[in-house]
């Protein structure tokens, strides 16, 4: 059965605005499940999901795992450090083995751009990209959109600036595609050495100074500065980065309007973002984390064939998925 999203979720670039809105709308009823005493519905009962993390990750892996468990799926976690990858197994061999185990879905994080596409082309199971190299991190992009929508309602005409290392950021790419599809004006701000040369061709504005970005934007999505970028010579030091590009309280106080502060985490406090901003009144960073579970539940539900119009019912345990009657989990 082909889902409303197709077989896989590989990125936000291939999705239509309708598909993105469908995921966000489906996520809405799932938010409430996390508030319950018994945080579980049977929407994916009997489904087997493998969380395949070739790169270390804490929050994304845990978020997916919570989403899967709250939908009653059976899950297996595989980390690269404990897998055959260390013995030299190729990704294609991994894919063939997974296929032979008759699983239903794979959530994969991988260090190579395109790895999720590679896997999706070779297995029948649904593939969800949990971050592939510097390409995309679609569920992060979706949770960012949900968080913005919670705050602003309709996003059309809003302005979001993505700040920092756009060059190496899969989050930035998913954000750019997703935001643009929903009618948001997008800008990037960061040292030119950390922006792709061709970034203007994405249809985004380049704002050279963080002060101007704060003046322009309704929301800033502040990216983590990876420390290895300093040793690779992209910037001189984290100290200088903070002084030139850091989102500080002093800078934020000069904003002409209330400005939303987002960060995909983990944060380098005192580098790209100051603590009193991260923990301050404009920050929705923890809302992003909460929304992550709902968005991932929505993606899992839709890819498994769940019908969007029954998401509310599925939440209550009376929806249908693939013809199977749903009942509230005990």
């Amino acid at each position, binding site marked *: 059965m082909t889902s409303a999203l197709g077989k896989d979720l590989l990125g936000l*670039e291939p999705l239509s605005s309708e598909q993105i809105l469908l995921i966000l709308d489906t996520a809405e009823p799932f938010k409430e499940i996390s508030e319950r005493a018994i945080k579980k519905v049977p929407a994916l009962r009997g489904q087997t999901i493998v969380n395949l993390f070739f790169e270390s990750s804490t929050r994304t892996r845990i978020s997916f795992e919570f989403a899967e468990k709250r939908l009653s799926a059976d899950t297996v976690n595989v980390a690269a450090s404990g897998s055959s990858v260390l013995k030299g197994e*190729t*990704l*294609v061999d991994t894919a063939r083995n997974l296929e032979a185990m008759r699983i239903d879905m794979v959530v994969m994080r*991988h260090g*190579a*751009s*395109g*790895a999720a*596409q*590679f896997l999706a*082309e070779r297995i029948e199971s649904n593939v969800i990209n949990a971050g*592939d*190299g*510097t*390409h*995309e991190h679609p569920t992060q992009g979706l949770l960012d959109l949900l968080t913005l929508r919670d705050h602003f309602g309709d996003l059309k005409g809003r302005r979001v600036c993505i700040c920092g290392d756009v060059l190496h950021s*899969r989050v930035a*790419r998913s954000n750019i595609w997703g935001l643009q599809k929903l009618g948001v004006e997008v800008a990037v701000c960061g040292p030119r050495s950390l922006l*792709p*040369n*061709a*970034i203007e*061709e*994405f249809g985004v504005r380049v704002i050279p100074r963080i002060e101007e970005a704060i003046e322009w934007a309704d929301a800033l999505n502040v990216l983590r500065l990876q420390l290895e970028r300093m040793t690779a010579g992209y910037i001189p030091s984290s100290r200088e980065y903070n002084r030139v590009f850091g989102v500080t309280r002093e800078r934020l106080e000069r904003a002409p309007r209330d400005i939303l502060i987002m960060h995909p985490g983990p944060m380098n406090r005192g580098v790209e973002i100051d603590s009193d901003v991260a923990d301050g009144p404009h920050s929705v960073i923890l809302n992003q984390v909460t929304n992550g579970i709902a968005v991932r539940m929505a993606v899992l539900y839709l890819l498994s064939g769940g019908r969007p119009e029954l998401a509310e019912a599925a939440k209550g345990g009376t929806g249908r998925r693939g013809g199977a009657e749903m009942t509230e989990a005990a």
Partner: protein
Amino acid sequence: MPELTRESKPLLLTGGRILDPSQNLDESGDLLVQNGKVEAVSGRVGHADDVEVIDCSGCIVSPGFIDVHCHLREPGREDVETIATGARAAAAGGFTAVCAMPNTDPVTDNQAAVGFVIRQANRAAAARVYAIGAISVGQRGETLAEFGEMVGAGAVAVSDDGRPMVSAQLMRTALEYARTFGIPVIDHCEEPTLAHGGAMNEGIVSARLGLKGIPAEAEEIMVIRDILLARRTGGHVHLAHMSTRGSVELIRWGKERGINVTAEVCPHHISLTEERVGAYDTNAKMNPPLRTTSDVEALREAVRDGTIDLIATDHAPHHYDEKEREFADAPNGIIGLETALGVVVTHLVDSGTLDFAMLVERMSCSPARVFNLEGGTLRRGAEADITVFDPAMKWTVDPSEMLSKGRNTPYAGMTLSGRAVCTIVGGRIVYQMESPAAARLQPARS
């Protein structure tokens, strides 16, 4: 020069369009081959009864194509290609001679290794295979290899291809020393710190796919360095697989000043752009990478006006499972011997950039001249290295039908125009398509 066994029976190629830019010849008629040499070329050739007649009507009879840049993987990776399979693939593509790059395992960096290549080529008895020796011992870029001994053993050029010559000083010395032997020094132009970690062209597509890009300047910086060193030394630098508009402009600058620089382009760089990478298709991964439409246009024009001297394949077979992996980790390169003619006809001739005489010049006469090789002409008495090709034959690229062991081609499934139907080396037929006339009638599979 590699020798091939000759058969004494004369060959008569009848009714073809004989096209030989080396003597401004373009006429319909017959060509007689006797004792391995071109015996006569004219409207009607008288001949003895005991002659094998090949009907070439509808086809072009030209001097044999010469590929100055291919990777035959032997010794070291015989599972991927051997000199024998590579030579047969060359013959099937219309090439009567190819030059094998030295980045084998072990590296072809001494006379014994050169001798091995030539012995294996003679045993294969298909297209001629010339050896290119390494510039530096082990291709490590540190110490010059023994050019003199390698040339004595049959090497026709030197190159560290697969790796750029990072040391400007060693490049300078190589150009000076190679003058002694009258051979070109071939450079793989790539500034390594700029190209480092790059998997495709740097631009909008690499930014979108999240792949590290290789900027055009990585090539162009080395191109201008090599041209300046050629000017300083008077040596002959041959620039391999040019891929950017900027490189073309720099080569033009060098040639206008009389500097001894020659250059080649590969069929893929004049027919495909970075967009071909699509959804991380590793069959579009090569080094230098596929560039932009603007680069393709500049390269086509450079082939037409002679700024780029010749077309070479950079035939680079890989085992299928080496390509079936994450894009950034997959090896660079595609096979090219069997598709080169079709790609050039389809993308340069059919588009009006080249006529067939220019195609023959860039694929046969010029390579022979630039690398000082036999061939590249149908003059009476020349070695009978001849390509007969059907310029209009439509065919669909099917990797499973390739004679190369490699299957890694981005042209799979594409319909091309132009195909070799008969390849003759030293008067001996080394490849003949079954019934070319019948093949012409076959509709291309879509």
